[in-house]
């Protein structure tokens, strides 16, 4: 495998919009809604952490998959993050105690009789 260039840790606002294929105004809206976090430097330029690219992908999946509004996603996304943390903790505890605790429903729908 040829070595790939190390991706930058943070991406400047306009580049981020390009990378994510987002209109800058929509990106601005995401920031206002608290969906993404931008940090500003001394010169007033705003930067996004690289991990926020994945956050944009999730916003899109939630939007297109569940037709959630952006403000609804702003509520849901942190809950999902929290669920994820709990899930990791749950799995750790399960391993520690050799038990399986109930999961988020993922079983097929029951057959109609």
């Amino acid at each position: 495998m040829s070595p790939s260039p190390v991706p930058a840790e943070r991406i400047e606002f306009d580049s981020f919009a390009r990378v994510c294929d987002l209109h800058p105004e929509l990106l601005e809206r995401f920031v206002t809604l608290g969906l993404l976090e931008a940090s500003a430097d001394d010169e007033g330029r705003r930067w996004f952490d690289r991990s926020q690219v994945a956050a944009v992908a999730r916003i899109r999946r939630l939007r297109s998959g569940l037709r959630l509004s952006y403000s609804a996603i702003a509520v849901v996304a942190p809950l999902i993050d929290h669920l994820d943390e709990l899930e990791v903790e749950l799995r750790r505890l399960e391993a520690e105690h050799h038990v399986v605790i109930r999961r988020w429903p993922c079983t097929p729908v029951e057959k109609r009789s």
Partner: protein
Amino acid sequence: MASTDGPTDYYDVLGVERTASDVEIKRAYRKLAQQHHPDINTDPGAEERFKQVGEANDVLSNPELRKKYDAFGADFRRVPDDVDPEEWAAAQRMREGAGRPPPGWQSDVDDQAFQDFLQDLLREQGRARETWGPIPGADQRASISLSLDDAFHGGRRSLTLGGPTGERSIEVNIPAGVTDGQTIRLPGKGGRGTDGAPAGDLYLHVTIEPDPRYRVSGRDIELDLPLTPWEAALGATVPVEGPGGTTRVKVAPGTSTDKRLRIRGKGIPTKGKEGDLYARVKIVVPDAPSSEEQDLYSRLAEISDFQPRSNR
């Protein structure tokens, strides 16, 4: 049933009756979509379920499509608008009997081409809803249960993931020395991206199956080391069979049950820091000692002033 050879019945997918009202369908769809959305449900099977549920809803929530689906079943998209359901059913029976396609509609479309066409169509519909380009896939989580030997030695392992129709098999490289509760990240093995966008990652949570021979705690492994009374009293060098092979261990004279002998570096070989193997001494006596053994034990009982319960 309108069709028995279809891949999945849309009503079954949504878990509703064929007589369900639009409201019931919508409610069932919303509920399932929320449960199986790949960002909410990280189970690898959820993605496929989510897709099915969406497809079922696309058809059943559209009165025209639903009517056709009810009449023609899984083949409903291939049937032209002016075909009478009764005639179609009769032709279908004939086709099955004669092994050749009935007249009246395109029968020369090969299945793969048709599937591709359908997928393009669905993709375009998706685009029409949202003017977005490719969306990277979501991360998924799954559990893998390994025997202590597998965890110890590592190696390739085939893992089947996915839901009712989306079963897929992936080859997983288990690094030697994984521990209970550890997570293995498999980049690009998670949820699929759309339109060529990268897939998400798959996180495998490792559970180590209990093994009657061993007790595992993190990287350390403990096992029982049965000793004869004379080995324990006089000391001995005995073989200890751990998951990594046999090690010879020196037992000091006067070793009692429950003493733990540490065998450094023979626990789980996690890179950079190997665990230790502990042999817990367990003194065992023969079930049925011979008369000579009995004599010797009696002799020992006579001459010994050892009182293990005196300091309790």
